[in-house]
């Protein structure tokens, strides 16, 4: 696309500039004597100082009712604690299926949870740092969900289980190698008394 410029004449060395033979539009700005635009710049965004409008001023912002919020009560994640008996499970890159070795871990976790039936459990789904944040948030939830489904299949009541995805945001290992990444692709368990 070629967009017209002001009437600046081109110098021939500017090979990349395309020129044309006739003027079709006058220059868009006023001459030097034109009055200054009186409108000051809009609210100064760069300034950290508060610039809240005066209380009497009409609210300039669009109306923003708080729309969708969740009716479902969710237990606060910070109320849950780790317990040594519940071991993490791990996942292949970009996968959320339960591997056979991890199924054995989950069998043991299910047994503990059925024995300690007065505990609620929070399953965290995590990813390694590869991939992108948005996709990993979804992938982490898939891992937590797959882990939950397995526990339910082993007789743990679904209404005791809450899941949360942290995506790639809470790694346990911060090096950039497969050994580290494989530790981060995990399902983690926390419990709290009912």
């Amino acid at each position: 696309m070629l967009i017209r410029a002001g009437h600046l004449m081109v110098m021939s060395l500017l090979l990349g500039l395309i020129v044309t033979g006739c003027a079709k539009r006058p220059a868009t700005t006023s001459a030097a004597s034109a009055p200054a635009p009186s409108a000051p710049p809009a609210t100064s965004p760069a300034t950290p100082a508060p610039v809240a409008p005066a209380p009497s001023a009409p609210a300039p912002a669009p109306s923003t009712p708080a729309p969708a919020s969740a009716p479902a009560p969710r237990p606060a994640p910070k109320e849950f604690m780790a317990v040594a008996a519940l071991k993490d499970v791990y996942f292949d890159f970009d996968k959320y299926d339960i591997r056979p070795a991890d199924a054995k871990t989950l069998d043991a976790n299910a047994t503990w949870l059925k024995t300690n039936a007065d505990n609620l459990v929070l399953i965290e789904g995590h990813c390694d740092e590869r991939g992108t944040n948005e996709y990993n948030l979804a992938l982490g939830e898939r891992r937590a969900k797959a882990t939950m489904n397995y526990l339910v299949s082993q007789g743990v009541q679904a209404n005791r289980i809450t899941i949360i995805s942290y995506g790639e945001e809470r790694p346990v290992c911060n090096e950039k190698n497969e050994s580290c990444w494989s530790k981060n692709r995990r399902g983690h368990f926390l419990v709290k008394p009912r």
Partner: protein
Amino acid sequence: MRRTVLAAVLVGLVVVASLGPWPPPSAPAQGVDVYINVTGGGSKKLNIAIPNFTVVSGADAAGHAKLLAAVAGNDLTVSGFFSVVAGVEPVPANNAEELQRRWSEFAAAGAHAAVHGLLAVRGERLEAEMRLYDLTSPGYRLIASKKFDAAAPQARRLAHRIADEIVLQFTGEPGIADTKIAYVGGRPGAKEIIVADYDGAGAVPATRNGSINLMPVWSPDARSIAFTSFMNGYPDLFRMFPFEPQRPVQTLAAFAGINSSPAWSPDGRFLALTLSMHGNPEIYVLTVATGKLERLTRHASIDTEPVWSPTGRQIAFVSDRAGQPRIHVMDADGTNVRQLTSSGFHTQPRWSPKGNIIVYTQRQGTHDLWAIDVSGANPRPLTAGPGDNQGASWAPDGRHLAFQSNRSGRWQLYVMLLDGSSLTQIPLGVSDATSPTWSPRLP
């Protein structure tokens, strides 16, 4: 439109001076108008001189006259249209002879245009005038002039507006200097959203909740930012008003599961987002004013990362329904789903403001930015290392992209033109910066 490409005629020129870095000038071609090809980056640039501004009133103890030239000069360089000389001594006001003498020096050095900047300091206010001259015309014709004013602490913004006006004069579309970039700063586990000028200056924290804050996206009016935060324990979706610090954060979606990947419709009335409240990440559209939710996808795969086409008629998104995550496109009502990219691991679709291409992130060992025509044709890489290059955000001109790269060993933000030229790092002074989101032009 009638066009002629002029051939370079450089024979017999005498280089008179060397005020600028430009190649020597040729004889001016008269009676023509300039067009600048605004889509490409290209190496052919207009040589422009911006001497320090001339103080015509008041005392400039803070050095704004130099600042305005330096900041606007950098803006013009980043625009990709200009080769800039800034920071040279000011041109006296009200002295036509001296003006002609200085312009003739710049013209002899190869300048095609020059800016005469005038500054009046009136207490806490700055009044500036930009006069733009054509150094290729006889007598150095005045092309345009415009006055600007701002409070003194807004001097950089004043310079950005001057630069954007100069770009408008030469291309017909304003520049993108008077914009902001929001981004995520900090390490995993403690990430806050920060807002800075597009050139990295004036960074101010926009969240301070000590939690994990992700995926900032500007609303089309440049007044608010939607983002995902764990501040209430779970990944919920919020909206903040960074220029109205007293205004509380608004909850947009806090359903069971993930509430993420906000994308504003072009008119700002709707927000596409990802919710998993029904057990699987699906794409919904939220009517912001009423809270009404409409579900767009129904598929057992992961569907996430919606982005609107600039017309608002279509939505691109990521789905792994083909086995790996790929870019898909559907109508804004959820119908007519088609797979856009194939054979690869593709996330982070970003629809061009011009509408014709979608930039995305391809994972192939490391991550690089790719672009594909909306027709599905011509997938091509925009970056090829070093390191990972991902998380693109379009500037409002549809020419520049901001993105994150760890090429230096840490995540930092970079800006380049769509063709990969004019690559610069945004100086932010934080050790980890990710997820840039480029604001619309500020109101």
